[in-house]
């Protein structure tokens, strides 16, 4: 099954895909921004500041999704010695890191009018900050080390340790008394968010997912060309 993940086979797809993904992203982000900034209603309690949710929440969701994907790829890559899985994981990391920074910064901006403070050491914010540090460590490992086996081992270890933090982030609002409200969107039970707010949130989430896919494809293609550059040196 893993032979389908051979770089030579997927490059024909990954090299053509970015322009289409960029086109889709522009469409989604344009509709999403119009919905989020103009068409969606204000909240009865938070007024217009609720609009920050449309960038804060998708960024947080996607950064968690990316980290979980990186962990799965690193574990499978390490067990089955599939180098390409580490490359995919490495290519996902920059967008994951940028999304967690967006989530932290927009969360801080949202905190000021809502809670009266830019920052609080509450469980959700602190656990998100810890995840940002794991992202940073992961990216640094690829920069600092030259030995590939060492990089694979350490980066896999970082993702395994970091993934422990992901359920803590998710359930922190239920386990501890935090400033954050409990989840408004539930897959298994009824969501408490109004459809007029759910629609822009869904569109913005799709736009953010497309953007992370675009960056992933560009990074992955760059990594493949880097490998091919080394291949030319050996000829």
């Amino acid at each position, binding site marked *: 099954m893993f032979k389908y993940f051979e770089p030579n086979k997927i490059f*024909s797809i990954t*090299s*053509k895909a970015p322009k289409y993904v960029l086109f889709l992203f522009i469409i989604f982000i344009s509709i999403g921004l119009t919905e989020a900034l103009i068409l969606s209603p204000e909240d009865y309690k938070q007024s217009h500041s609720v609009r920050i949710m449309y*960038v804060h929440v998708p*960024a947080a969701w996607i950064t968690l999704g990316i980290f979980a994907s990186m962990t799965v790829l690193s574990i499978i890559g390490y067990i089955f010695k599939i180098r390409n899985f580490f490359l995919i994981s490495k290519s996902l990391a920059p967008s994951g890191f940028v999304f967690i920074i967006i989530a932290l910064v927009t969360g801080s901006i949202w905190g000021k009018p809502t809670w009266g403070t830019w920052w609080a050491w509450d469980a959700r914010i602190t656990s998100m900050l810890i995840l940002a540090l794991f992202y940073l460590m992961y990216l640094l490992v690829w920069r600092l080390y030259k030995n590939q086996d060492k990089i694979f081992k350490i980066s896999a270890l970082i993702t395994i340790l970091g993934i422990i933090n992901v359920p803590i982030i998710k359930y922190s609002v239920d386990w501890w008394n935090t400033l954050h409200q409990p989840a408004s969107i539930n897959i298994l039970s009824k969501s408490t968010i109004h459809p007029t707010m759910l629609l822009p949130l869904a569109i913005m989430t799709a736009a953010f997912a497309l953007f992370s896919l675009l960056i992933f494809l560009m*990074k992955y293609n760059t990594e493949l060309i880097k490998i091919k550059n080394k*291949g030319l040196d050996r*000829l």
Partner: protein
Amino acid sequence: MISKVLFMDGYGLYVWSSFAFTLLSFFLLFVVTKIQYARERKKFIVKFGNLKSEKASFAKSQSINKQILSNTSGF
């Protein structure tokens, strides 16, 4: 209408700065990634150009090398 969208009952600064930070981060990440891609591809083309004819034809037999040279991604 325009002033309502801009000022948002006093929350405009918070809302617009959040969206501006997000879009600026997107733009910077896109530009940096694009520069890295272009740099690696340029390096590849230069190295490929310096290959002797037999080595170049061997390298060109790999489809991935042909695709890199033809820049099908459009980026």
